Structure formats: structure tokens, C-alpha cells
């Protein structure tokens, strides 16, 4: 059976079939390629997601590790900071303890040196060698001064040196005091008011009427080329205390007392003590002292003119200058010291019980050597403080350049009352104001 369609139609049909087959093949290949790409893309995506998962896992574990490391780091830093703080604190304490130990070592050395000197002086006193005892004390004076806190508060001589009186002669300062280690009247000397050396006993022998070991409150008046020592002595056989005088050709003594009886005494007033000479602007000498006030009489400070030689009293009698009328005085005034400065008379005195921490120094203002005197303040000008207790027995003197100083004795803290030491203090004095001002020492 022959195809009777036109040839072109057959060709067209064949071409269409061929085209359709080619199209199908192309479409099939394209589809396969698309699927291949899709699979590849999904494979890449899966790989990337796997990578992301791995990375996130690593990130999580690393974050945990970093968190732990950070905690460890912070803990370590905190521990180190704490350790350093503990270290610094311990270091500071160690420095303090080391310093304390060092100063303790110095204190121990000073104490041992001081104790050695005092023991030596004790042995010398037992052998009745007061002069050597004084030398022993002088030798350890700096160490003993250190033990008592140094001289920043004016401590000058760290041994028993009560009722001091200071006299300057030719650039040398002589200090006299109540009987103690160095003898009846102790005497020490200095060139700078800081370092003091014992001379010994200024009054080696007492008059026969005086009781041994009861001589105190000395004061010296340079007059007519000689030196007159006024001091308190007790009459023999328990009699009253009276004032005597001794003479020497040089300030360090020895002073000789040839008296057959007291220089001045007020038996009816309980006796007389604490003599202190005063020279007025016109050169007239006076003596001020205290009556002890027994028998219902008040303690009183008196004044009377001396003869030109200073060895006798003149006039009709003594003039009372002061009695206790202030509460701080505790019913007692004593240890007078009259001072003339810039036309003003100052009467320094001590009040209250000498054997206590209540002892103190006051001042009165006087119109002249025989008074009258008034108290410008109801309070003392020098009282117990942190460094010393019960100051008293003051005396005022002038240094080489005209500066005013005040010497006084005082107990050390924790060591108040006989037979503890009454150490010597020397401090600058200012009389420019209405009331005297005792400047800091050292």
C-alpha cells in the first residue's frame, strides 16, 4: 500500500516526529541536569549545614571552656589580689613589729645602761661615796633620759633633783637641788642646759644644829665676789625646819655654814622653808620664803630685805606676800621665786601637796619685793601633763643671751611620790603677756 500523501507532508511529519523526539531528549537532559544541580546544591547545603553544626558545637564547647577559663582567671586574680592584700598587711605589720623590736632593743639597751649606772650609784651610796654616785649617774644620764622619754618635754636630768635652782656664772649653768644621791645639796653643771654633769655635794658639812638628810630647797645669791647658799634645814631633835646660809668662793662650792643657829626661822608659824633670794633693780637683795603654817596658821610666803652681804636680814620684820586662797592650791603655797622682768614683778610659787600629782606652779603679780601681790588667775600656769606629773619647785633664770628659762621638778608618769625621782626639767619662759607662758621643751 503506497503512501499517497504528498512528499512534503511526509517530510514534515518525519521532521515533526524528529523534532518532538529531539525536544523530548533535550527536555529530558535539561531536567536531568537540573536535578543533578539540585542534588549537588543540596549536597553542598548539607555539607554547609554539617559545617555549621560542627562550628556551633565547637562554639558551644569553646564558650564553655572560655567561661570556665574566665571564671578561673577571675578567681585567680581575686585570690592573687587577696593574697597581695594579705601580704601587704603582713608586710606592714612586719615593718611595724620590726621597728617596734628595734626601738625595744634600744629601750632595753638604754634601760640596761641606766640600770647599771643606778645600781653603781646605789653601791657607792652604800659606801658613803656620794661624789662617785653622782658621777655614776652622770655617766648614764643620756640613757636614763631616753628611758624617761627623751628631752622633748624639757627633761634635763632624769634623776632625783627636787626643788631646783639654776645660776649662770660665766657661761656655765649650775643647778642646785634638795638632798639626794649627791649629798646634802646636790649640784650639777651644764654649758647648754641640755647635758648636765654631777659635781657632787655643794654642802659637804652641816652645822651642828641641823639634822642630817633633811636639807632642801637651796638657792644661791652671788654677792660681793662670793656666793651665799640659802637652804632649809631641820633643827636637831625633831625641831622645826628653818633657813640657814652658807658661803663659798665659787658657785660649785664647797659652801661652808659656820652658823650656830638658823638664819631665819618662824617657830610660831611652824617653821620657815624654801628660801629664795631676789635682787631688785636698785641692787637691794631680798629673801622670800614660806612659813609652814602649822598650829592653825595658813602657809604663807614672806619677803624681807637682806643686808648687802646677803648674810643677814634687815628691817623690822618679814612681810607676808601670799597665802593659799585658790582651790587648786589645796591649802598650801610654797617654793617662792620672785622675778623682775620689764618693770613687772612676778612671784612664782607652788601649790598643793608636793608628794602628789596635784602639785602645780602658779604665779602672782606684785607691786614690789615686799608686795602687795595679787593672783591674776585662779588657775596654775604649769600642771601635770602627759609627760610628767606634779611639777613644782620652780625657779626662773636668764641664759647668756638674755632668754628666760624656768627650771622645775616633776614626777614621771606611774612613779609619783617619795622615794621616786623628781626629775629636773628646764623649759623656755615667756613673760611678755599678761600671764607667764612656759614654752615647750626640747
Amino acid at each position, binding site marked *: 500500500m503506497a503512501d499517497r500523501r504528498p512528499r512534503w507532508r511526509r517530510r514534515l511529519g518525519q521532521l515533526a516526529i524528529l523534532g518532538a523526539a529531539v525536544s523530548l531528549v533535550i527536555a529530558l537532559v535539561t*531536567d536531568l541536569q537540573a536535578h543533578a*544541580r539540585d542534588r549537588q546544591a*543540596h549536597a553542598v547545603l548539607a555539607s554547609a549545614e554539617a559545617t555549621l553544626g560542627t562550628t556551633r558545637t565547637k*562554639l558551644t564547647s569553646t564558650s564553655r571552656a572560655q567561661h570556665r577559663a574566665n571564671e578561673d*582567671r577571675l578567681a585567680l586574680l581575686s585570690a592573687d589580689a587577696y*593574697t597581695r592584700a594579705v601580704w601587704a598587711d*603582713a608586710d606592714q605589720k*612586719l615593718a611595724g613589729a620590726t621597728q617596734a623590736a628595734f626601738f*625595744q632593743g634600744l629601750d632595753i639597751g638604754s634601760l640596761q645602761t641606766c640600770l647599771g649606772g643606778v645600781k653603781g650609784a646605789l653601791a657607792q651610796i652604800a659606801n658613803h661615796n656620794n661624789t662617785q654616785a653622782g658621777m655614776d649617774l652622770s655617766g648614764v644620764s643620756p640613757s636614763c633620759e631616753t628611758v624617761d622619754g627623751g628631752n622633748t618635754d624639757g627633761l634635763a636630768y632624769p634623776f632625783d633633783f627636787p626643788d631646783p635652782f639654776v645660776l649662770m656664772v660665766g657661761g656655765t649653768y649650775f643647778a642646785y637641788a634638795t638632798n639626794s644621791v649627791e649629798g646634802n645639796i646636790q649640784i650639777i653643771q651644764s654649758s647648754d642646759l641640755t647635758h648636765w654633769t654631777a659635781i657632787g655635794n655643794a654642802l659637804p658639812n652641816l652645822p651642828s644644829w641641823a639634822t642630817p638628810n633633811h636639807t632642801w630647797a637651796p638657792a644661791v645669791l652671788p654677792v660681793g665676789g662670793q656666793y651665799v647658799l640659802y637652804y632649809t634645814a631641820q633643827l636637831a631633835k625633831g625641831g622645826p625646819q628653818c633657813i640657814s646660809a652658807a658661803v663659798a668662793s665659787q658657785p660649785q662650792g664647797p659652801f661652808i655654814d659656820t652658823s650656830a643657829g638658823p638664819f631665819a626661822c618662824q617657830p610660831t608659824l611652824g617653821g620657815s622653808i624654801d628660801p629664795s633670794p631676789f635682787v631688785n633693780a636698785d641692787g637691794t637683795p631680798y629673801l622670800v620664803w614660806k612659813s609652814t603654817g602649822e598650829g592653825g596658821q595658813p602657809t604663807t610666803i614672806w619677803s624681807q630685805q637682806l643686808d648687802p652681804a646677803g648674810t643677814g636680814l634687815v628691817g623690822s620684820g618679814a612681810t607676808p606676800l601670799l597665802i593659799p586662797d585658790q582651790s587648786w592650791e589645796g591649802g598650801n603655797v610654797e617654793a617662792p621665786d620672785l622675778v623682775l622682768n620689764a618693770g613687772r614683778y612676778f612671784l612664782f610659787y607652788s601649790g598643793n601637796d608636793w608628794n602628789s600629782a596635784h602639785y602645780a606652779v602658779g604665779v602672782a603679780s606684785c607691786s614690789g619685793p615686799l608686795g602687795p601681790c595679787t593672783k591674776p588667775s585662779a588657775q596654775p600656769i604649769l600642771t601635770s601633763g602627759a609627760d610628767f606629773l606634779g611639777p613644782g619647785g620652780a625657779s626662773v633664770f636668764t641664759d647668756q643671751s638674755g632668754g628666760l628659762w624656768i627650771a622645775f621638778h616633776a614626777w614621771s608618769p606611774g612613779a609619783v611620790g617619795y*622615794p621616786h625621782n623628781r626629775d629636773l626639767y628646764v623649759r623656755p619662759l615667756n613673760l611678755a603677756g599678761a600671764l607667764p607662758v612656759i614654752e615647750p621643751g626640747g
Partner: protein
Amino acid sequence: MVFSVLEPQRDRTGPVLTKPTATRRAWIPGLVLLGLIVLVGGGLGYLVGNERQANTQTDQAHATWHTTRHHIAIAVGDLTVIRRELRADNRTIQVVAPALAQDTAQVKAVQAALAQAQASVVQQGTTIAGLQACLGGVEQALNALSVGDLDQAVSRLSAVATPCQQVAAGG
């Protein structure tokens, strides 16, 4: 031969005898062609649709891949930062740990020295107290003896005999 016999008849009778047979025969290729067209068209349609779907999925996979890569980059960045911090922390730990150990040793040494110094201070304080007590008593005895007060001197010395003996024994 049959054809040649019949041919004139067909020619004569013409349309009555040959026309229906020729028409049926003429439809067959058309139907075949139509079926072919439908088949090819359907196949092409399916394939094109399938390809489009595949392409779409590929595009989505690419988009997701890009997002994932972005996430990977962020994660890697974070990881890098954290690793750097970890290394820094570890370095700090490596430095601080020995320093802490050294500081601790120093503290122990200082504390030991402090304890020793404090013990020394206490001991020296005791020595000082003994020396002061002894000195105070000897001073008082000295003062009492210097004014002939022998009883007082003996009393004061007796009162400090113990601290003086301890001081003497302590060297």
C-alpha cells in the same frame, strides 16, 4: 491486479465506493499525529515542570546555603573571638597562677617572720617591763638610801627583787 480491476470502477462509481475508505484512512495519521503531539507536549510539559521544580529547589537550596554560610561565618567569627578570649584567659592564668603561688609563698614567709617578730616584741616587752620595774625599785632605793632612809631602801629593793632577778637571768 485487484487494484487495477477495481480502479476503473472506483473511478466510475467515483465517490460512492472510495470516499468513505479514504476519509477513514486520512484520519489515522492525524490521530496518530495528534496523539504524538499530545504525548510529546505532555512529556515536554512534565519535563519542563519537573525542571522548574528542580531549579526552584536548587535556588532554595542555594538561598539556604547562603544563609547557612552566613551563619557559619558568624559562628566562625564568634568562635574566633571566644578562642582569642580563651587564649588570653589561659595566658593570664598561666601568668597569674605562678605569681599567686609565689605570692602565697611570700605571704607565708612574711607571716612567719611577722609571727617571729611579734613573739620577739612580746618577749622584749616582758624584758622591758622587768627592766623598768627593777630600775624603778633600784632608783627608789638609791634615793631613800641617799637620805639615810635605810628601811625604805631595803623595802624598795625587796619589792623589785623578782623582776631584777629575772632581768639578770635573762642576760
